[in-house]
């Protein structure tokens, strides 16, 4: 059972994007950072454990040539071995900041060279993989940035080809040092999933084809890919082979966000149908196959959810954002 906790107010409402909530848990400092995209700006809020807002900051997409102010597509904290960076993607490019958003350390302008006039140009999909930060783009290319332990000397080290349609989300294996060959998965608007092995050069291991609907959100846990689709399905695949192990008719509308509590194998799914569901992932001891159990369902009345994240490693609390809603809703288990 979960109960509603005190909401965190936002200066601007959340935009109707997918994966529109990023959470940085800082248990040692008794703080949680939240990041939400409003439109041309993104808002960062820090809160104490009871949800009391302590500080807030607004970031804007860097201006460029164009008619209207550029819109931000995603904001996400990347936890690297020696530092945490905040990454912001927009219709102009990629901005990287120190984790509190105070200083921009890097700007990468998108090359719209071979885009046709009807194509929207943007960056979307952000994840940290070791000392790299990977960012997806409208063309399907994944940009890999090499991040030094400190300072602004960030370099674009590789561009990965694998997708033909705009990238939606990227996920990396949370357990570093695990004996996992496949440690990154990327998803796109056609529903295609690409599974990679990171390294000085990233290698494409498997392709898991889509079935005509976008895959807006994806997670990776102990060699299992969890993918949420535009038709409300959540599917679990074995990362190495691409074999489908579990198919859940989870939601009645498009899924907008997935999150993982890796220590306990809990998966959170949120969709435009106003529901948030929590699932328990496990491996059957007899067969070795991935199994899923439904733990909890929460309805956020009259809210088109656009972002959802666990707020602690044990998955006993989570936060939700909704389109047009100027607050972050919080739930914790009783």
């Amino acid at each position, binding site marked *: 059972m979960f109960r509603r906790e005190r909401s965190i107010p936002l200066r601007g409402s959340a935009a109707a994007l997918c994966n529109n909530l990023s959470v940085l848990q800082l248990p040692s400092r008794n703080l949680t950072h939240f990041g939400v995209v409003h439109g041309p700006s993104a808002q960062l809020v820090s809160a104490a454990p009871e949800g009391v807002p302590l500080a807030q900051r607004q970031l804007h997409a860097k201006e460029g040539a164009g008619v209207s102010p550029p819109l931000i597509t995603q904001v996400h904290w990347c936890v690297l071995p020696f530092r945490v960076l905040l990454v912001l993607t927009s219709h102009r490019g990629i901005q990287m900041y120190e984790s509190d958003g105070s200083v921009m350390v890097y700007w990468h302008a998108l090359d719209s060279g071979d885009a046709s006039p009807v194509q929207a140009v943007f960056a979307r999909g952000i994840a940290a993989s070791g000392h790299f930060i990977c960012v997806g783009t409208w063309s399907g290319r994944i940009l890999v940035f090499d991040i030094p332990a400190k300072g602004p000397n960030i370099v674009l080290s590789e561009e990965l080809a694998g997708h033909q349609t705009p990238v939606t989300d990227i996920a990396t294996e949370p357990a570093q040092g695990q004996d996992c060959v496949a440690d990154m998965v990327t998803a796109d608007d056609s529903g295609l999933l690409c599974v990679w092995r990171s390294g000085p050069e990233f290698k494409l291991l498997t392709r898991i084809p889509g079935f005509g609907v976008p895959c807006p959100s994806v997670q990776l846990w102990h060699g299992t890919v969890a993918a949420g689709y535009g038709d409300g399905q959540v599917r679990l695949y074995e990362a190495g082979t691409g074999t489908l*192990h579990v198919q859940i008719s989870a939601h009645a509308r498009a899924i907008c966000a997935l999150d993982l509590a890796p220590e306990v194998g809990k998966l959170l799914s949120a969709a435009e149908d106003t529901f948030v569901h929590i699932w328990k992932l496990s491996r059957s001891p007899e067969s070795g196959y991935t199994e899923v159990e439904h733990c909890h369902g929460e309805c956020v009345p009259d809210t088109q959810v656009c972002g959802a994240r666990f707020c602690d490693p044990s998955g006993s609390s989570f936060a939700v954002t909704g389109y047009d809603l100027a607050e972050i809703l919080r739930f914790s288990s009783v």
Partner: protein
Amino acid sequence: MSVRTLPLLFLNLGGEMLYILDQRLRAQNIPGDKARKVLHDIISTMFNRKFMEELFKPQELYSKKALRTVYDRLAHASIMRLNQASMDKLYDLMTMAFKHQVLLCPRPKDVLLVTFNHLDAIKGFIQDSPAILHQVEEIFRQLTEVKCFFLLCLWQTYGGLSAGEFQLIRQTLLTFFQDLHIRVSLFLKDKVQNSNGRFVLPVSGPVPWGTEVPGLIRMFDSKGKEVKKVEFKHGGNYVTAPKEGSFELYGDRVLKLGTNMYSMNRPVETHMSGASKNLAPRTQENIAPNPLAKEELNFLARLMGGMEIKKPSGPEPGFRLNLFTTDEEEEQAALTRPEELSYEVINIQATQDQQRNEELARIMGELEVTDQPRQSASKGDDLLAMMDGL
């Protein structure tokens, strides 16, 4: 954001405008032939070929202010006049109605079905007209011609789009409508909107076509054989979709969104209060010096340059339509409209760009507007004057 959104936005908002005007014309007992003439004139202006060509060019969406200017023009395409308060209310109703339709579309591509519902209804406004038969026939012929052109444009633009591209269009539309929470009595009465201005999102009914009813977990072995099936309680009350709506020229759209909800002759009121809570971002948009004014002016000039306002065939006396039940109510609404909800276009420095003004003057010269209530010195000043006067 998607550069293919404007035609959908324009046509659906235009459709809602026609529904509301039709209802008010009947409520105000405007004689049938005059009412029909107004609707016909607006429809022929909307489907003007040159205008359509401009509309379908790939372009980003402009602000609500800029778009409102186009509808102000459209509403005055005939012998009818609207005061600012009524025009404001009309635009509020149109935008809230389409916002509701976009939000409730089961699949992103169903916004096309909503568009077809509006288009089907527009056909109905034309067909149903006994009085000036030859005029109707002529309009119908022209309309069929341009409608074919329009449908061709529609098909070319949207026919081959993927689900992902429709999702981007949906997100673009929702961005346009973000933070709009005007309460509409009809919506409140029908329990479609809550008293805080937010729309009700039902958790029951048919699932979108292609989606399964939630509640089932299926587990497979490495050979793809199903080994376990478990049900879970989803929390909603969904059923399978009976059939898919038709995307053909004629057909059962199945979806009711975009059909005329005013046909019951119910009064259309809006509440202005209680909508101000989330207006901080919009206020900022209104008062900051607007670097986009020039771009928006260009957009308007291009779009309206394509709008051919027809000359009336005879000495038709104009009339004023009131979106409120009494004149006093209309006056009161004008006085009490919250600052943040004002659609005033930022005062454009008319002196700055002589060349652009001349270009606008030339375009304006091609437009003949009857019964222009504003006394302007020259035709060329009309556009700017109209915008300054909003």
